[in-house]
């Protein structure tokens, strides 16, 4: 009897593919639960849709009776003393006890998802309003060209060779010159592809993002507003063929700024949020008339507003509400909330929605709440 060794290192796995596929399908649901953390991830919100993100994801738990967090057990290794806290332990955190049969290698794996897949998962489950973009037939900025038939004149680059050759052969047969050695093309044989320009049904949306730049803006606050802007813009882009973004920075005065400036600008002094709403209304009137554009307005603020601006702010907000499809008011890590003051507006206008965010990982939830709210409104 001798020991045998065979060399099969060139063979990959043989049976497991189906089981991996099933597990992946099952944990896809877990992705949903992780979404809120994912959206709170810089890598996700600053990436192209096709970019792949490696995501740490919990595996599915197998049904099994198990002991809860180890209340007691035996450990090994010198250098410990009585009463010492167990290294790396939190009560209720651990699973299994010292002697778990079979080795448990951990319950987390890495999966790759594209940013689009993550976003899809976020909005898939949520019964969000299916935006029906207005078809803006009147604004035919962008037309599509299609080839349709042939024409006798045209640019040589659009020469239709087969049609031209056919015409030459027809002429030759008509002339009875079947056996002639040379029978050159004439200009009259040539046929060109005809291009017709058709108006494309166009749907236009503008996302107007406003942000309070007064006072301190911690990285986290900045991050939250960035994530919120990313979400709303990405969502609108799903529905419209033509989406523009406008950035408004404000303190006591408001002005349109570049995207970069929007997220970096800081100024000291007071705050009058009415300025942002007035500026938004001005821009809409100037460039984005609601007859041609659906307007989405989102305002990120920390809730601070000068007392004397209270009524002007409400008036300006109400004025703006008549022009926009969504008016989202996002309050971030607030110390003095303004949300309550919007109460009447919120009751009167279904397109108004206010949310409050305290932590990074609440962004996705807030976004969903904001949209669900206008959805409920649409159905009511």
């Amino acid at each position, binding site marked *: 009897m001798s*020991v045998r060794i065979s060399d099969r290192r*060139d063979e990959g796995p043989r049976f497991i593919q189906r089981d991996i596929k099933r597990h*992946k399908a099952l944990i896809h649901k877990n992705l949903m639960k992780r979404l809120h953390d994912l959206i709170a991830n810089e890598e996700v919100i600053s990436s192209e849709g096709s970019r792949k993100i490696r995501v740490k994801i919990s595996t599915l738990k197998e049904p099994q009776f198990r002991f809860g967090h180890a209340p007691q*057990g035996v450990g090994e*290794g010198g250098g410990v003393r009585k009463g010492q*806290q167990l290294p*790396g332990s939190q009560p209720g*955190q651990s699973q299994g006890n010292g002697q778990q049969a079979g080795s448990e290698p951990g319950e987390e794996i*890495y999966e790759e998802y594209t940013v689009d897949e993550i976003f899809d998962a976020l909005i898939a489950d949520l019964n969000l309003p299916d935006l029906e973009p207005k078809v803006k037939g009147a604004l035919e900025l962008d037309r599509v060209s299609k080839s349709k038939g042939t024409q006798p004149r045209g640019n040589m680059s659009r020469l239709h060779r087969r049609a031209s050759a056919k015409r030459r052969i027809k002429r030759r047969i008509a002339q009875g010159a079947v056996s002639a050695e040379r029978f050159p093309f004439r200009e009259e044989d040539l046929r060109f592809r005809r291009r017709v320009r058709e108006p494309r049904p166009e749907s236009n949306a503008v996302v107007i993002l406003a942000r309070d730049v007064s006072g301190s803006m911690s990285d986290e606050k900045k991050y939250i507003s960035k994530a919120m802007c990313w979400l709303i813009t990405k969502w609108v882009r799903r529905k419209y063929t033509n989406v523009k973004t406008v950035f408004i920075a404000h303190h006591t005065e408001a002005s349109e700024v570049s995207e970069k400036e929007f997220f970096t600008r800081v100024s000291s002094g007071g705050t009058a949020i009415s300025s942002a709403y007035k500026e938004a209304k001005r821009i809409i009137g100037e460039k984005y008339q609601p007859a041609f554009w659906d307007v989405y307005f989102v305002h990120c603020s920390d809730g601070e507003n000068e007392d004397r601006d209270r009524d002007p702010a409400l008036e300006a907000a109400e004025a703006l509400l008549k022009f926009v499809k969504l008016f989202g008011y996002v309050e971030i890590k607030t110390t003095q909330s303004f949300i309550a003051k919007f109460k009447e507006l919120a009751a009167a206008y279904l397109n108004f929605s206010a949310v409050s965010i305290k932590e990074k990982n609440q962004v996705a939830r807030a976004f969903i709440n904001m949209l669900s709210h206008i959805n409920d409104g649409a159905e009511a």
Partner: protein
Amino acid sequence: MSHNWTVEELSHWANIVDATARSFGLQPRQMDFVIVSPDRLIEIQAYNAPLGHAHWSRGKTFQVWQTMRDVKGAGALEVAFNADPCFAALRPDQSFVAQLVIMAHTIAHNDFFANNRWFAKTSPDTILNRLAENRKLVNAYMKRYGEKQVEKVLDAAHAIAVQRPLVGGQDRDWLLSYIIDYSPSLQDWQKDLCRVVENETDHFIWQYETKIMNEGWASLWQKRIVNALPITEEQRFEAKDWYAAITKRGASSAFGEAVNPYHLGFAIFEDLKNRWDAMAEGSFISNEENNDNDVWDGLNGTDKLLQVRSLYRDRRFLQDFLTQEVGIQLGLWRYGPNARGSQMVIVTDTMEEGSFENIRNELMRDCGLGSFPSVSIKDTNYKNRHEWLFVHNWDGRDLDVSYTRLTLMALFDLLGPVWLETRTRKRNAPYFYYFDGASFLSGAEGSSRSTLPR
């Protein structure tokens, strides 16, 4: 990693390793090593065998190990499987000396499978055929009844496969068998699937029950065998590192430092050998106060080792041979919640007067199938509702509620509404969980706060 051996060389040395093992008295079966690709190795780990029936949990295990390998560089050096001939997968990326140590380690596992009396209950000669047949059957049923329907049955069967006494016990303690025999609603194909799981569990369960011994055994013999091989001093030096590295592996616990079966088993076996060798030489007088197992039976160290590996499994092994000296050498300690319950702290260590017995008892309770909650069937017509009541035989360790919920949900798919009776550390009275297909309810019997059906 490049390696410094050819398959022919390895084959030559594998036979020398095998012959050396036999010269010490080991009696392994015919050994078949297969050098496999990294992914195939993980596949074998996922099925715990060269093949197995389809189930998502295998895909999960595969992905988890793959992640461990790719992220942390961790992974098995070999997978030995109890079959006749004995099957073991080796990695292609290990050095010559590492392979020698791993082969010696594996041949010791092979010897353990072949000679430990508990493994006599398995049928290693037919296991590969049975696994293949089971796989075919599950695939056929998936085609016929749908993947999800089959998965439901397998989920439930896997969930309770280890809830069984190893010998004896009442009918109602054999959960899976009892369900197969007495569930009025199970169809034949569903029973077949339960039998697949039962049949495979019969084969694997002894590995749980002998984990400490089997790993200790392999760790001990890899050292003795390789030390006896005609290799160079340099290779001997490298081998030493491998003994330590392999024996250090396997510490897998939430607490990082909890007991490692390789290390524990190794230390006990080594101590056992030393004591019996000393007694054989007459230099060690058995102490009257020690228990009967320390009375010299005329065997020398190696013969004692061989006897113990044939007759014991972990619980008894710990009871008879884990001495306080070994406990101190390993630095065993007990942990538990502090007085406020806010932190896990070290409660006692082996040096402390009288604490060793507690430590050993706790290890014995937690080892093998003791790491799983014991559950039996109490009633199949509970409250005259034709519903099944399971009972968790509480021993001081509470159930994890989220896993309990998942398990009752899985059992519902086989049995309809199910009950579970348990206890908790907080209240020393029966406490019930119930799943009726829609909601998961819980409460104490008769409690006003209970949401359970009356």
